[in-house]
């Protein structure tokens, strides 16, 4: 890998462990400390204008990874860089630039927006905060932002309690766009909505991302959403990225059995319901030796329980599996 200077984010073997104290003192005797590895050696880059989907079951570490990217939590090991600077150590102008440049769209849009503020003030808050807009132009800027997300300017005077779920999420997106960021980060931003509202928002996000050239890091457990919205995908399992590459390639010919299992589980018109992946994601405490997916993997062999597979690059793709699935050789 060369010329990394333009990368917006770079994660180098990021680990995040939580000390979970003496949860089972009675079993192990007082004082035995246990650690939970929410992230365990994550390597990732986000380039300008690129869209990346993070997928995986609940508990796989997606939100923790996002919190590291946003500087809300510092890695316990490894490095998390924003434009080549350690995120957790950003200060002064760098910190301000980071706050303007990286915008978060929350999962719970309604809960993240102050119900006592009007839509105007909610969307203008980042403008005011960063001193980005003269007072006189405030309304016009907000009107333009609302129009960008498909809301009429008349909505400015309303409170979020008077808006539908889809409208509230649009307000949250307008607010995120206000500081003219270069990265949008979203955690399950369309879940829990009607399919029609979801489709509208996804189309909006894709258009915004393409037209404005912003980067997008989008957490979802819906592979259809990932495929529609993001050029790249990173599949996570128990704190690791187990497969990554161009979304279409990964989803049409997965190398990792876990990716295939997620694909099989996704609803597909008129297909018989496939044999589900057995069991649930285990707790990241006291992981077994060897491959962490072995307990649920239909491809597992003896060596899988001994050797922990590292993420191996194969062209533009990478996967962490000792016995990758057969796939047609990459075209071209």
């Amino acid at each position, binding site marked *: 890998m060369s010329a990394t200077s333009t990368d917006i984010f770079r994660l180098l073997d990021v680990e995040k462990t939580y000390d979970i104290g003496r949860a089972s003192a009675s079993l192990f005797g007082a004082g035995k400390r246990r650690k939970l590895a929410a992230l365990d050696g994550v390597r990732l880059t986000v380039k300008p204008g690129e869209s990346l989907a993070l997928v995986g079951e*609940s508990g796989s570490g997606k939100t923790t990874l996002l919190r590291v990217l946003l500087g809300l939590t510092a890695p316990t090991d490894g490095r998390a860089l924003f434009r080549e600077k350690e995120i957790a150590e950003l200060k002064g102008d760098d910190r301000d630039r980071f706050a303007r440049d990286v915008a978060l769209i929350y999962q719970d849009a309604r809960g993240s927006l102050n119900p006592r503020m009007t839509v105007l003030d909610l969307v203008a808050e980042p403008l005011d905060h960063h001193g980005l807009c003269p007072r006189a132009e405030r309304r016009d800027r907000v009107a333009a932002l609302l129009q960008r997300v498909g809301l009429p300017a008349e909505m400015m005077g309303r409170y979020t309690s008077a808006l539908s779920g889809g409208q509230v999420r649009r307000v949250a997106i307008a607010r995120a766009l206000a500081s003219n960021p270069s990265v949008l980060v979203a955690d399950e931003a369309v879940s829990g909505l009607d399919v*029609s509202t979801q*489709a509208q928002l*996804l189309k909006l996000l894709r258009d915004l991302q393409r037209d404005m050239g912003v980067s997008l890091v989008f957490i979802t457990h819906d592979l259809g959403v990932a495929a529609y919205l993001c050029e790249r995908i990173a599949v996570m399992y128990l704190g690791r990225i187990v497969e990554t590459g161009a979304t279409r390639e990964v989803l049409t010919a997965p190398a990792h059995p876990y990716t295939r299992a997620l694909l099989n*589980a*996704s609803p597909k018109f*008129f297909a*018989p319901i*496939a044999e589900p992946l057995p069991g649930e994601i285990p707790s990241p405490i006291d992981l077994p030796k060897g491959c962490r997916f072995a307990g649920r993997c239909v491809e597992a062999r003896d060596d899988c329980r001994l050797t922990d597979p590292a993420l191996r690059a194969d062209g533009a793709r990478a996967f962490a599996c000792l016995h990758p699935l057969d796939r047609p050789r990459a075209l071209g």
Partner: protein
Amino acid sequence: MAAALAIPRSDPAGATPAAAPADALLRVENLSLTRGEKLILDDVSFALKRGATLALVGESGAGKSTIALALIGLLARPQVGLDGRMLFDGADLATSSERDWLRLRGRRISMIFQDASSALNPCFTVGAQLMTPLRRLLGLSKAQARKRAVELLEGVGLSDAESRLDAYPHQLSGGMQQRVMIAIALSTNPELLLADEPTSALDVTIQAQIVRLILDETRKRGASCIFVLHDLALASQACDEIVVLYGGQVMEAGPAETVLREPLHPYTVGLKACVLEIDTEELEPLPSGSPSFASKRPGCRFAPRCASALEKCAGEKPPLIETRGRRLACWNPVA
């Protein structure tokens, strides 16, 4: 490799799309519900055969949960404003007394809710919640109920069933809680199972497990099942019949295969176009909007959002007619 689950399907070619097959376990006829000024359900009819599965689909507020609650006698009392019939094995649920319901609810008709964590009582162990209906409704002794409870938990794929009896709901994951709910719902061998978005809070992997579990277990028992679903692709996989609701009205209904392969109602077409599959390149989302529930409003409730609307659509309500193997309410069907 992925083994296929054979789902019994009604024959779309020879089928009469009638709302009332002779061997129906459930026949909902002209069900309407008014609450104040709002007509929440408007003349809803559908039927369900023994052993068949039916999907209720539509956007938020369409009336799906309201129908499910009516079918299990949990609509807010007094049951004013409810009109029409719900014939379950010949008896009308709409006029059942609370005493009748004691023999039906949780016994012959059970329900699984979307949010298992709030449907289970946090103060009681899994064992207590599972054994209470077995003892009260089926009259089993404590020892018998315990044995049966373990069998039921094993049946829904919960490992270590014996020790799970002493667990409290919060000690289980969302998927495990949903399994416990299914075990409770199935414990009395109901003939009709209602599942209101049983998996929308869960990962796709767990969703696949749970849907399959519900289908396997109801099929084993010859029971019928009504799923409330948001995902049309999942409906096509799991259900024999489908009822598409908008603003409390049936827009299109019939065999899931027929309706979803070739939807004729603009609303069904629009909903289907919102479903993202892995290879979806472009989305054509339905315009936003929500139905008016005003009971006096004439015309098609979908008209303000409909790209195919004709002039008459705003003034005259389209009747639900039988056509091309389904029931359809539209003046200007697609294709």
